[in-house]
């Protein structure tokens, strides 16, 4: 490139500002289908994405965020922009949850990533398990209308696109222990412990 470095640094800064203004206008005009940001929490830096309808995706850092972004672009919309404002409500509730100030998420949810049917019914049933208590795979299967589909319920929970907020960590095996978790078992233990739901030894 021909121009000198000093000019380029000014450009970088000016183009960043222009992009920020453009984002504001784009959001107002409904041109941002999905906004995303990252949130630092005690269980790691979480990826959080919201549509106009609500929180649509939350991901743990083991899943490369680029990957999550590509998935969202492919399945929902490529009009995907880093937009802390769009995700502001979800971010603040997550922070409050980890500080123990919020026991129930009130952020609207967008279920677009969950196929309708059994999976969705399992996750909807899971969303009603209160803070501080747990349920079993058989329980949520039953509440989703298929009492014998505990294993299938486990799969649906593993594919939960909005962990923590849809509290799949509150579903445990009937035989004891915390069981499996898509976001690593230590996180499940951490979350249950935070909620005071771990069985006392």
């Amino acid at each position: 490139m021909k121009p000198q470095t000093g000019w380029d640094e000014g450009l970088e800064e000016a183009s960043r500002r222009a992009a920020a203004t453009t984002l504001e206008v784009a959001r107002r005009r409904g041109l941002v289908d999905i906004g995303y940001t990252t949130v630092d929490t005690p269980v790691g830096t979480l990826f959080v994405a919201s549509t106009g309808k609500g929180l649509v995706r939350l991901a743990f850092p083991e899943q490369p965020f680029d990957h999550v972004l590509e998935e969202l672009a492919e399945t929902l919309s490529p009009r995907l922009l880093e937009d802390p404002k769009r995700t502001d409500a979800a971010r603040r509730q997550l922070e409050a949850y980890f500080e123990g100030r919020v026991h129930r998420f009130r952020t609207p949810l967008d279920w677009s990533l969950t196929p309708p049917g059994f999976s969705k019914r399992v996750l909807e049933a899971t969303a009603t398990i209160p803070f501080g208590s747990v349920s079993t795979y058989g329980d949520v299967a039953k509440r989703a209308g298929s009492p014998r589909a505990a294993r299938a319920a486990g799969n649906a929970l593993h594919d939960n696109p909005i962990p923590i907020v849809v509290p799949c960590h509150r579903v445990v095996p009937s035989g004891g222990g915390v069981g499996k978790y898509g976001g690593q078992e230590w996180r499940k233990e951490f979350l249950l412990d935070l909620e005071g739901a771990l069985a006392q030894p």
Partner: protein
Amino acid sequence: MTLPPFQRLLDEHRTDVYRFLVAAVGRQAADDCFQETFLSALRAYPGLRDASNLRGWLFTIATRKTLDHWRGERRRPIPVERLPERAAPEPPDGDPELWTAVGALPPMQRAAVIHRYVLDLSYAEIADALGISEDAARANAYEGRRKLRSTQEVTA
């Protein structure tokens, strides 16, 4: 076909698009053209059929916005005291006379000259960005440069 997240386009090409716009329309108008470029791009993005040259696609839109801008400027009655500011985009290399001359070129030649000599794009890339053939890109850049040479002693 899958389109990358729009944020990636913005991250990868934001500064180059901005550099092009400053060179083409000046600092004052660059922000507006930048905004219009990316809003148009966002509007059209989900319907885009060919993702093979997204940079070229963005520059095509940006170029169209600069052409719109200059056409608008010509139609609009401009107070005399504002003229110098418009005719001389803030020069990236501190040579106002050169940039005044660039600003006076016909739009296609101006765009081709900027793409070639400011952005260092190949003729194939310029052709993509301007939506013209490679030969036309070469001809426009050549003609633009010849005019610049004839108005002043320029060795770009």
